């Protein structure tokens, strides 16, 4: 303290000068609108650069919160998107007022395997959050899998990287139906079976979900055809496809709940009787 006072006494002239200079600047600012305008302009310029730095730092710490908010927003948008996908593909959809029976629940992936032949994922939502088995799981750019078993807070999902899972798909521009499955090697190599040879196929056509399974609504884009060749012996095409998104690198997913699944199941049973 004594040192501070000593320093103040020693440098009293500069200190006094700058204090009075500050005072007179205030005085100038208060009395002249012209100077006020310019001083504000300069102070804005300086404060802006400081604010930029500080907002960068603050934003960094707010990222998690923002992420959560965006995820929530995405969830809502995703359900709209699914709905509109379906409507746009049904020619008479608007007239018929087709009801949309799917609901979207967001979830985080907490374990993701992709090295086995039959891979599963674990997500952090369980039956407390309204998840039951046999629900479809999608990400923002494609399909991830189907829910297999559910515990209180977690569920396991059969990954699309599982040779047992076959997904009903169709092609966007040719309306040919088929089923998509993993080849079992590269997480990006898929094949589409059961496409009849008399349907026309365009190269690089987009693959969308077919809407015939009760897991996924119609029209979720999955990937594109990389190449194809007709297999004349069996009467089916042999199509290789790749996905838009690498399923091994997915962290946020949306679980799709189908309200009508019980109804559909019941109908299926009735047919089998």
């Amino acid at each position, binding site marked *: 303290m004594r040192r501070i006072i000593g320093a103040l006494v020693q440098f009293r*002239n500069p200190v006094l*000068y700058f204090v009075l200079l500050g005072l*007179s600047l205030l*005085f100038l600012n208060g009395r002249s609108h*012209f*100077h006020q305008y310019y001083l504000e302009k300069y102070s804005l310029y300086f404060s802006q650069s400081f604010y930029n730095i500080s907002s960068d730092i603050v934003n960094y710490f707010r990222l998690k919160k923002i992420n959560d908010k965006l995820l929530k927003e995405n969830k809502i948008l995703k359900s709209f998107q699914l709905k509109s996908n379906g409507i746009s593909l049904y020619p008479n959809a608007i007239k018929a007022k087709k009801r949309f029976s799917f609901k979207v629940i967001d979830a985080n992936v907490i374990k993701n395997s992709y090295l086995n032949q039959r891979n599963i994922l674990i997500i952090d939502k369980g039956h407390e959050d309204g998840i039951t088995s046999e629900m479809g799981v999608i990400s923002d750019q494609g399909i991830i899998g189907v829910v297999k078993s559910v515990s209180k807070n977690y569920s396991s999902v059969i990954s699309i990287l599982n040779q047992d899972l076959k997904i009903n798909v169709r092609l966007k521009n040719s309306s040919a139906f088929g089923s998509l499955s993993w080849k079992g090697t590269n997480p990006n190599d898929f094949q589409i079976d059961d496409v009849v040879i008399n349907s026309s196929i365009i190269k690089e056509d987009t693959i969308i979900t077919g809407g015939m399974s009760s897991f996924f609504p119609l029209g979720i884009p999955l990937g594109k055809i990389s190449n194809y060749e007709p297999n004349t012996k069996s009467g089916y095409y042999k199509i290789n496809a790749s996905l838009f998104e690498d399923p091994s690198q997915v962290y946020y997913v949306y679980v799709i709940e189908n309200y009508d699944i019980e109804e559909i199941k019941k109908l299926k049973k009735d047919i089998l009787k």
Partner: protein
Amino acid sequence: MNSNIITLIISFFIIVLVQVFLFNNMFIFGFINPMIYLLFLVVYRFDDNQTLFILLSFVLGFCIDFLSQSGGAHTIASLTIGFVRPLLVKYSFGVTSESPSTFQNDLRKRNKYLFLVLLILIHHLLYFIIVYFNWNATYLILKNTILTSLFSLILIALISRFYKKLNDT
């Protein structure tokens, strides 16, 4: 010493009043408004209290600003002169054993005029910069600084001679 303070106070008030009521109404060639209140900053004793001097120069500028309804340009300019005056004294009179204690006491004319010119130029430049406060007005600032400095210099030189005689008697 006592009479010195009285002279200081009286000259302070006289200078302020003369500046505000006489020279602020004087427009040579329509725009030159000589500032003779710098005289106070010139004649203040060189060896007197520097801190008090800064304070006084602030108060002087403030009074001029206040009475002539200008912004704060006089305050900032004269405050700065108050702060840098020791440097100007050192530069123009040199650091010798015979450095003067007051402006009037020194007999070296060249040094005196150098001191005056520097002081007035710095003050006026700062003053006009603050008044115009705009890069586009550089020409106006320089023109006003040089012409006004010329007239201020003449007037201050004249009056300081008169001041000297007054002090002597």
